């Protein structure tokens, strides 16, 4: 895991294009980008652009680094896949190439890669898919990787074409059956967990999906790394806003101690 210190940067929008459904792919040019580990995230300020210093919406939005590509001289293209649903993300979707968006990152603790030789299974649902791309790429250098992606409909499936370019086995599930398995993506997970041998299990997506993945993993005697979401103001451990209750009592901060946590450590019933 990288220990790169975060930066604050006024990043330049290179591209901000609709993918399927409400999904948008944002490519940002960031100077002096220190690189990020899979599962780390950035905070993006939607109000800090469009030629005005609007303070509504006020808070920056946490977004996984989908992919970071160095472009030389320390700069990089940081890519984010997001769903434009709320006030902030809809405003973000209005940013045009050449405009600036304030970025703080890389933040949080990402995924621990599987030991060399160990295979892995990655379960992604909805926008959670965005946290898994770098993990899939790097895990494939360690062992065989299965990626299971789920969404409501084929349109909503994020980043599928990118995953197809990786050396991973891809399984798809949609709730309406428009693509791949009809049903929940966790239904694809169960048989994989039953296979013999060591296996690293990772999940990112809606809370019920992660909780179900963790239950299935536990039933199969396996641990499971989950990447949690929570409302955030700062993203770097100073507002104490993103507390998640722990099974053993007390709280972790999603932004500082996570977003990736061991599923068994989390008090799932206490999540917001």
């Amino acid at each position: 895991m990288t220990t790169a210190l975060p930066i604050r940067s006024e990043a330049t929008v290179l591209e901000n294009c609709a993918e399927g459904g409400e999904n948008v792919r944002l490519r940002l040019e960031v100077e002096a980008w220190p690189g990020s580990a899979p599962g780390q995230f950035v905070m993006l300020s939607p109000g800090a652009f469009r030629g005005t210093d609007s303070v509504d919406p006020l808070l920056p939005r946490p977004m996984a680094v989908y992919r970071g590509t160095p472009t030389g001289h320390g700069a990089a293209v940081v890519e984010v896949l997001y769903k434009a649903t709320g006030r902030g993300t809809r405003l973000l979707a209005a940013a045009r190439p050449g405009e600036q968006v304030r970025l703080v990152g890389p933040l949080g603790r990402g995924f621990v890669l599987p030991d060399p030789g160990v295979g892995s299974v990655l379960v992604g649902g909805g926008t959670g898919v965005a946290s898994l791309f770098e993990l899939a790429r790097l895990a494939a250098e360690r062992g065989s990787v299965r990626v299971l992606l789920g969404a409501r409909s084929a349109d909503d499936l994020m980043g599928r074409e990118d995953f197809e370019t990786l050396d991973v086995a891809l399984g798809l599930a949609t709730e309406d059956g428009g693509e791949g398995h009809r049903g929940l993506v966790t239904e694809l997970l169960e048989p994989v967990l039953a296979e013999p041998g060591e296996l690293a299990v990772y999940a990112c997506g809606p809370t019920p999906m992660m909780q179900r993945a963790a239950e299935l993993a536990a039933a199969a005697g396996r641990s499971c790394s989950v990447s949690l979401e929570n409302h955030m103001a700062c993203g770097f451990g100073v507002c104490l806003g993103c507390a998640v209750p722990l099974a053993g009592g007390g709280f972790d901060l999603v932004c500082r101690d996570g977003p990736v946590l061991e599923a068994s450590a989390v008090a799932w019933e206490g999540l917001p």
Partner: protein
Amino acid sequence: MSSLPIDTSVDFAGIRLVNPVMTASGTFGYGSEFIPFFDLRRIGGIVAKSLTLEPRTGNPPPRIAETPAGMLNAIGLENVGVDAFVSEKLPLLPPELPVIASVFETEIDRYAEVCKRLTGVPQVAGLEINASCPHVKSGGIEYGQNPQLLARLVSATRRATPAPLIIKLSPNVTSIAEMARVCAGEGADGLALINTLQALDVDLETLRPVLRNGLGGLSGPAIRPVALRMVWQAAQAVDLPICGIGGIGSAEDAAKFLVCGATAIQVGTANYLNPRAPVEIAEGLAAFAATRGLPRLRDLVGTLEGLGSS
């Protein structure tokens, strides 16, 4: 940004600051979290997260929510406790940086005990007493909402420490001037205001408050006009130096607080949006003074005209 050498330093409640920009308690962690973003010595000082006698855990989530031009929070008393602050957090900070420790407790004698433990600690330049803590025996009213309770709190903490003593006032009162006078009467060295406005937002899906705690505190740009009014009223009411807080996000915002009578200011919620906000505001204030031809930034303090005292 300018060639004029501007003297930006101020003396706040006996604490010398290189410039009037500090950071607000609860919005700046224990300070070291911001080291990646700027050299902390470039701002006047920092106020750390409020400390209790023992380490405390906070409220269950959700603890924060966004509102129009603002945010709500109900974090609870979560902090590492006064002893861990002194032994583990303070050493991470540059020794030249003035650090004000914020104190937050449920009982007056516990407030006093935390003050004692912080007294004499080399890097602690002063103490800020957070009077927005609910006093459980008075049905949850904040210390800062009742003049008698506030007087007892100020007098007890005053007796507990010779360190510069700053009282951070609650804005949820009919008369901030009255509360300011109480503090002056009990020997406080300075005032800090405002803390958050008590507020509520509702989740229409669940028909519950958006925060698990129920009520929360409103901060951010939305409250700035209320904060400016209260700072001006407090400055009219007492001779104590005042640290202005509430929705400050730019040098212009900060300058307005100085004009209304604040000697120093604290940057709060803006740290979340822009972790370089304090240093940018400090630079902007120097540039502002240069543009106005003010050799000393502190000459701006209390220069508001056209408003009779009330």
